[in-house]
C-alpha cells in the first residue's frame, strides 16, 4: 500500500503544479495580473456578475479574452501531443517514435502550404481552411503509411511501419519543398506556420481542442493494457491474446488524430510528444494506466510554459513556440534519458 500512497501523492503534486503553471501563464505578461485579482475576474466572469470597480476592465479583458484562451489552447495541444507520443512509442516499441515519424507534420505542412501558396479560398471554411487542410493532409499521410504497411506486411510489424513512415515522410517533404519554391512572398507565412504559435488563440479554439484532447485521452485509456502489452512486441502481444493487427491500427489513427488536430491549432511543434512521455515514465513507471493521463497533464503544463517563454523571453517580440520546446526539450531529453546508468533500472 506504501507504493500506491506515494503514487497518489505524485499524481496530486503533478496536478497541482500544472494548475499553478496555468495560473502563472495567465498572470505574466506585459500587464502583470496578481493571482488574487485574476481569481476575482475569473469567478465573476463564470458567475456572470458585474466586475467590482477595483478591477480595471481592460485588465479583465486581457485576462479573459487573450491570456486564458491562449494558455488553455496551449495546454490541450500539449496534452494531446504528449498522449499521441506515448501511444506511438508503445505501439511501435520505439522510444524515439512519434506521430511525426509517420509523417503527420510533413503531411500537415504540405496541406497548409498548398492553401497558402495557391491563395485558394473556400466558402464557409474561411479562416478554417488552413487548419482543416493541414489536418486532412496530416491524417491522410498516416493513413497512407498504415495502408502501405498492411499491404506489404501481413503482421503489420512495427519496423515496417516506421520504415514506410520515414519514406513517405521524406517523399511528402520533397513535395513540400517543391511547393515552397513557388511560395515567393508567402514563404514567411509558411515558415511561421511550420514553427508553431499560439498567438491570437480564442475561446472557440479551446472549445474544439479541449474536448478533442480530453475525449481522445479517455478513448486511449480504454487501451492502456494493450499498450503495456504491445511494448513487448507483436508476437508477444499475439501470444497474450491482443489482436495486434487491429489494435495497432486503431491506436495509430487515434494518435494521428490527436496530433492532427493539434497541428491545426498550433502549427507543427516538436519535442513535447517525445520528452513528456519519457519524463512521465520516469516519475510514474511504465504502466500506461498512469502514463496516458499523466502525459496529458504534464504535456499540457509543459506546452503552456513553453508558450509563456515564447511570448515573454524577447518581449514584445514572440519567438516560435516550436523553437522553445526544442531548446528546452533537447537537453532535457538527453538528461532524462541518460540520467541513470543502464538507462532502465530505477529502483532495486
Amino acid at each position, binding site marked *: 500500500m506504501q507504493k500506491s500512497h506515494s503514487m497518489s501523492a505524485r499524481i496530486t503534486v503533478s496536478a497541482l503544479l500544472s494548475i499553478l503553471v496555468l495560473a502563472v501563464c495567465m498572470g505574466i505578461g506585459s500587464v502583470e495580473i496578481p493571482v488574487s485579482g485574476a481569481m476575482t475576474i475569473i469567478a465573476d466572469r463564470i458567475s456572470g456578475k458585474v466586475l467590482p470597480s477595483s478591477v480595471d476592465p481592460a485588465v479583465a479583458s486581457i485576462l479573459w479574452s487573450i491570456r486564458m484562451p491562449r494558455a488553455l489552447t496551449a495546454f490541450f495541444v500539449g496534452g494531446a501531443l504528449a498522449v499521441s507520443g506515448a501511444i506511438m*512509442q*508503445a505501439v511501435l*516499441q*520505439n*522510444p524515439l517514435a512519434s506521430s511525426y515519424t509517420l509523417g503527420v507534420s510533413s503531411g500537415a505542412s504540405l496541406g497548409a502550404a498548398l492553401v497558402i501558396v495557391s491563395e485558394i479560398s473556400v466558402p464557409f471554411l474561411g479562416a478554417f481552411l488552413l487548419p482543416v487542410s493541414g489536418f486532412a493532409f496530416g491524417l491522410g499521410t498516416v493513413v497512407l503509411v498504415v495502408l502501405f504497411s498492411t499491404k*506489404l506486411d*501481413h*503482421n503489420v510489424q512495427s519496423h515496417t511501419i516506421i520504415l514506410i513512415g520515414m519514406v513517405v515522410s521524406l517523399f511528402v517533404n520533397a513535395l513540400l519543398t517543391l511547393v515552397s519554391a513557388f511560395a515567393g512572398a508567402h514563404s514567411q507565412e509558411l515558415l511561421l506556420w511550420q514553427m508553431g504559435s499560439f498567438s491570437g488563440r480564442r475561446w472557440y479554439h479551446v472549445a474544439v481542442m479541449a474536448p478533442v484532447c480530453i475525449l481522445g485521452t479517455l478513448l486511449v*485509456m*480504454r487501451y*492502456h*493494457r494493450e499498450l*503495456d*502489452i504491445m*511494448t*513487448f*512486441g507483436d*508476437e*508477444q502481444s*499475439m*501470444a*497474450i*491474446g*491482443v*489482436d*495486434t493487427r487491429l489494435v495497432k491500427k486503431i491506436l495509430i489513427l487515434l494518435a494521428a488524430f490527436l496530433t492532427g488536430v493539434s497541428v491545426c491549432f498550433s502549427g507543427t511543434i516538436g519535442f513535447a510528444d517525445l520528452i513528456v512521455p519519457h519524463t512521465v*515514465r520516469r516519475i510514474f*513507471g*511504465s*504502466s500506461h*494506466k498512469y502514463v496516458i493521463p499523466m502525459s496529458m497533464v504534464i504535456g499540457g503544463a509543459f506546452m503552456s510554459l513553453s508558450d509563456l517563454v515564447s511570448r515573454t523571453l524577447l518581449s514584445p517580440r514572440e519567438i516560435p513556440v516550436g523553437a522553445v520546446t526544442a531548446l528546452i526539450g533537447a537537453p532535457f531529453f538527453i538528461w532524462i534519458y541518460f540520467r541513470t546508468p*543502464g*538507462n*532502465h*533500472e*530505477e*529502483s*532495486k
Partner: protein
Amino acid sequence: MISLEAENISAGYGNPKDKNRMQVLHEVSFTVPEGRNVCILGANGSGKTTLLKVIAGMLPYTGSVRISGQDIQKLKRREIAEQVAMMLQFSDIYFSYTVRETVMLGRYLHIDNFFGNPGRQDREIAEQAMEATGVSDLAERQIGALSGGQRQRVFLARTFAQHTPVILLDEPTNHLDLKYQEELMEYLQRWSEQETVLADGSHHRNTVIGVFHDINLAFGIAQDVIFLKDGRIVAQGEKNQTVTAEMLQTVYDIDVVNYMKRQLNHWKEL
C-alpha cells in the same frame, strides 16, 4: 477435448507472392491429442520455431491448423490465446515494468475492468506462476535490469499465468542455470499431469508442446516426438518407437548416441 491438428502446412518468411521467398516448412502434418506432451526436435534452421508460431497463429501459412476441430484462421486472437499460450524465445524490452506487472500481463484476457485491476484469483495465479519459475523474490525488480535467464523465467511465469490447457514453449531452458532447468522440467512434468479448467467450466488435461535444444530434457518430458529436417517431418510418433540411433544421426548429422556416451564418461570419475 482440445486437440491440435496441423495438415499440409507450408510457411515461410517474406511476401507470399514472391517466388524467391524463404520457404521454411513444407507440407507438415501432425496431430497432438489432449494430454500428450510433444517435443519437436531438429537441427538449427529446421523450422522448429516457425512450426510453433504457425500453430499459435502468428505467421501466415497454407494448409490448415485446427484447435479442437476449429480452423484457427476463423478464431479470434483471444479465442486462440484462451486455449493456447506461447512462450517465445526473445523479447526486446524498451520500457521497464516490474516482474509482477509483467507476469500480470498474462492475465490480460481474464481481467475485465477499465483500470485493469487484478482480482484475487488473478493475483493468486500470478503468484503461483512466479513461485513455479522461481521469480517470486524478484517481483518488484524492473525486468530491464534482470539477466537473460531471469527474464526467461519471468516470461515463463507470464505464460503460465495465462492459465491455458496447452502451452507452446520455444526452448524454455535457454539461458537457464542447471538448477532452474531441473526445477522447470519438474514443474512442467507435474503441470502436464494436471488439468486446467477453462472459463466455460470445461476440464482439460494439460499439454506441453515444446521445442528443445537439449535432447535429454526433451526426452524427459515428451511422450511423442516430431523430428524435423529442412522443414519436413522425417519421423513422428511415440517416443520409444520413433527415437532410434539412425533417426538421430539423420536429423542432427552426427552420431548422437556415441556423442552422449562420451559425454557421460566425464562424470564417471566424479
